[in-house]
């Protein structure tokens, strides 16, 4: 199994949701089945948890109980990552569900809650969560009855129950061999790869398609810790060379790496979208392999251990008092006391802990860390420096570089076929232009080859991406200029789309051949639809536009044109912040329509005796027309300026 990508997760979520839809009544087979599915898809735990949460929220009140039972079943039988995932929202979900169900079901809900609190292996959730849950119950007016809790009607798979009881995850005083529970179950999800060299793999373990990653998040804490318990034995068995005084150091180191690895994996599980965690996991896995296959002297081990310790410290784990992992093996040697300490801190204490990655913890530790280690904390690339230092240490101190030939330094490790996601120059990660690729001819053989970094050319190499449409440009001067033009274009497009509500867009006629050949920048601003319709039939547009003379109303209560005696249009002009009379003129303190006055003037000069009233009759339609024209012009001008902005 591999880190499910977003699409896979979504698919699993939808599938799981579909199965959940069947859970409308308290049915043992369905709950068992769904529990098993949840168990088998640990990688998709966040998706499954979301599906269940959705279902609990959206189900009808009568159907909430079976969902809660399912949740309970998963918590108790699978436990693990699910506990921490459910814990995030459990209080809110519980409260919303509790609110709407009837009193009979409320009792059942309370019963379930009590089993969580009084679980034989200790409370399922942290004290705070349990308290909050009890608070919810109390608030709803019903005090939790102090009845002895029982599993009640919850159906569980007997196989799981047996396992869970024999090796209970929450046992407060567990025998060392049983701290990490449900191995049989959990190892179903255990990935091969890095654990290849660890002999004590469970028979349930089976290979999963890992899409070329050396390891993945599948490994559960439990597995790792158990490995650690007998790690020195394992190391001795598997590698005779390590039967030296430093063998324990090596195993401790391995253990430490695994611990950090486990944290990282859990982290990657919690945040499937976080690629940095994936990168960390990979590098750690490689480091682990390197350590396992290489004989190291005490000094290098100590140094690596120290760096790891700092690295582990950067992974902030909220301490939980319930489980305290024992470190019996590690305490054998005083030289690794500090390692053990870091182990204590870094170890996820039991599978119930949500190993959340805290940036703030990250920041605070940075001050304590030597500068070299600081950068190594920040990204997987830098982590690889650790591998590098491992390499150089070996070379320098003991001169046993030949034994390192198996892994051959980090370059070799990464050059393996499985290591593409980590940006690395040795794998041709810096393909920036088509010229970096070998010549590909248009022949059958060339086209059927695989050019591993070719896809980068289309995406990563062009890392300026438009957020609106996804078009990409290279991150350089020309790219930026193009991006700016592109964004401008979007801006205009979007504004146009907004205007669409007011104005209909029509398809233009296609341009003719010559224009098509010459057509360059594709921009509405430069485009003029060919005016086919008006090229012959319409008269020339009216002559020069008359200037509309608007004058202040100046408190005229009922302004009328002295010629046509029609009312003058009053409007508020925001520019002058005053009431204006549209198209009016004031001559000798008498108001006229601009047009009326003009016509009157003409008549006056031609036939001075003509009387204004007769004019008004013959010309009023004309005035109306002109007005319309003017306002049309107004609109036209407005549109033009908007476009050319």
């Amino acid at each position: 199994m591999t880190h499910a990508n977003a699409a896979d997760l979504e698919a699993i979520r939808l599938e799981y949701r579909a199965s959940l839809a069947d859970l409308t009544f308290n049915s043992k087979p369905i709950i068992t089945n769904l529990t098993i599915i949840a168990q088998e898809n640990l990688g998709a735990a966040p998706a499954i948890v979301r599906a269940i949460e959705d279902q609990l929220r959206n189900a009808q009140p009568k159907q909430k109980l079976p969902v809660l039972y399912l949740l309970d079943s998963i918590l108790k039988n699978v436990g693990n990552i699910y506990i921490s995932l459910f814990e995030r929202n459990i209080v809110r979900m519980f409260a919303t569900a509790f609110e709407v169900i009837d009193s009979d079901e409320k009792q059942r809900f309370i019963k379930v809650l009590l089993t969580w609190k009084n679980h034989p292996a200790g409370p399922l959730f942290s004290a705070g969560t349990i308290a909050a849950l009890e608070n919810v119950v109390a608030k709803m007016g019903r005090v939790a009855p102090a009845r002895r809790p029982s599993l009640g009607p919850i159906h569980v798979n007997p196989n799981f129950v047996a396992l869970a009881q024999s090796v209970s995850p929450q046992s407060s005083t567990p025998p060392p061999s049983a701290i990490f529970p449900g191995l049989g179950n959990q190892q179903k999800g255990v990935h091969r790869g890095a654990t290849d060299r660890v002999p004590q793999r469970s028979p349930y373990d089976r290979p999963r398609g890992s899409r070329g990653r050396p390891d993945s998040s599948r490994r559960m804490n439990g597995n790792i810790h158990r490995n650690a318990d007998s790690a020195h034995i394992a190391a001795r068995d598997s590698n005779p060379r390590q039967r030296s005084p430093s063998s324990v150091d090596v195993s401790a180191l391995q253990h430490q790496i695994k611990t950090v690895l486990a944290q990282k994996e859990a982290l990657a599980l919690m945040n499937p979208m976080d690629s940095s965690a994936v990168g960390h996991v990979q590098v750690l896995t490689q480091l682990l392999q390197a350590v396992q296959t290489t004989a190291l002297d005490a000094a290098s081990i100590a140094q690596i251990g120290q760096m790891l310790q700092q690295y582990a410290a950067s992974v902030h784990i909220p301490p939980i008092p319930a489980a305290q992992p024992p470190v019996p093996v590690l305490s054998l040697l005083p030289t690794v006391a500090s390692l053990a300490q870091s182990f204590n801190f870094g170890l996820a204490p039991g599978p119930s802990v949500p190993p959340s990655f805290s940036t703030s913890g990250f920041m605070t530790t940075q001050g304590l860390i030597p500068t070299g280690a600081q950068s190594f904390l920040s990204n997987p690339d830098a982590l690889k420096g650790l591998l590098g230092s491992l390499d150089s240490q070996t070379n320098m101190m003991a001169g046993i570089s030949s034994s390192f030939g198996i892994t051959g330094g980090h370059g070799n490790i990464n050059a393996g076929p499985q290591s593409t996601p980590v940006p690395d120059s040795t794998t041709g990660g810096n393909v920036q232009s088509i010229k970096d690729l070998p010549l590909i001819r248009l022949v059958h053989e060339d086209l059927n080859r695989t050019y591993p970094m070719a896809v980068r050319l289309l995406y990563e190499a062009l890392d300026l991406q438009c957020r609106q449409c996804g078009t990409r440009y290279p991150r350089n001067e020309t790219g930026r200029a193009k991006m700016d033009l592109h964004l401008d274009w979007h801006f205009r497009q979007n504004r146009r789309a907004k205007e669409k509500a007011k104005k209909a867009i029509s398809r233009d006629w296609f341009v003719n051949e010559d224009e098509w050949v010459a057509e360059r920048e594709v921009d509405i601003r430069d485009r003029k639809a060919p005016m086919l319709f008006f090229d012959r039939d319409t008269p020339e547009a009216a002559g020069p536009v008359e200037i509309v003379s608007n004058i202040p109303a100046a408190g005229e209560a009922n302004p009328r044109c002295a010629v046509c005696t029609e009312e003058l249009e009053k409007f508020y002009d925001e520019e002058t912040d005053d009431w204006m009379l549209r198209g009016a003129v004031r001559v000798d303190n008498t108001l006229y329509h601009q047009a009326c006055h003009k016509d009157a003037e003409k008549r006056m000069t031609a036939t001075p005796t003509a009387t204004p009233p007769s004019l008004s009759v013959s010309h009023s339609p004309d005035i109306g027309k002109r007005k319309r024209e003017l306002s049309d012009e107004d609109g036209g001008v407005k549109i033009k300026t908007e476009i050319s902005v």
Partner: protein
Amino acid sequence: MQSYLNVHLALEQLRVAAEEKGEEGPKVMIVGPADVGKTSLSKILLNYAVKQSRKPLFVDIDPSEGSISLPGTLAAMAIGRPIDMEDELSASSATTGTSPLTYYYGYPSPLDKPKLFNATVQRLSTIVKRKLGEADVKSSGFIMNTPSQFVDVASYDTLTHAIDSFGVNAILVLGHERLYSELTRRYRQDSGISIVKLAKSGGVVTRDKTYRRHLQMHKIKEYFYGTRKGELSPYSSLVPFSDVAVRRVGEGTLAPSSALPLGSERLLQETRLVKVDPGDILLHSILAVTNASLPEPTVTLTPEEESAQVLGTNIAGFVYVSEVDEEKAKMTVLAPNPGRLPRRYMIMAALKWMET
């Protein structure tokens, strides 16, 4: 997909080389039977090229689908922005900023009127070649989509004619072994043309006739009304018969050749226009509005001159005849733009549509 990406890489390398030498970019033709993903491959290659800041031309000489404008057309378009998954290529030029160069052929298969098809291809290729002289598209070359009938032996001449007129220098044969070997035999000596066979796209489905018909109708609707993303408003107007000059490509009633006088041969009717008298015959037709203006009343053109002029110009758009009133000699047409119909030649062909 891997091989498609590799084709793009190879083409891109050719473009880089062409850019350095100031030559024209790769001229790619995609051939293959129906439902192998020819159009999809064209779009993939175009979009890859656009991503790399190229501006390739898309030449579509498949009249059955009309992915650029309408079924029955042969068209070319400069692609400067990624092709939208939803809008595809039919978005209005107002939103894409590019106008297609379109010629009306009017029939779904090149086999219907091979001579007319060849003439149209000829005309299209001339203009496309001129366009390739422009600096912004020169090194990007073109990607050409072809009709599925090209794999037919009967249209072999049409295929080679298209290859020759466009000066194609790379042929991608999708899922058709025989055509591949035939083409390699034909162009073996000519090292200028590389011929590659590719597997057909995964996930193609066979589209039946009804579905194709549906697609065509959808395309027509899209021309007038736009897509969901970019809606368009067409306009209806009443046009007197006297204002339009409708032509159709020579059909009419022909005497069988046995009835002709001894020794005389049939004229080339396929590339000659025949006058259509407006009337009920136009109802529900899609008429192509050409960019060829009607001659002045004083000038009279011989049918040959007229045919050459009208068929030799690209079209400006389409109108749909929604109603015909023979008594009043008027018809109602749906035009993409507001206003009166232009005084232009219109070509009628087999394309009909019922507005729903």
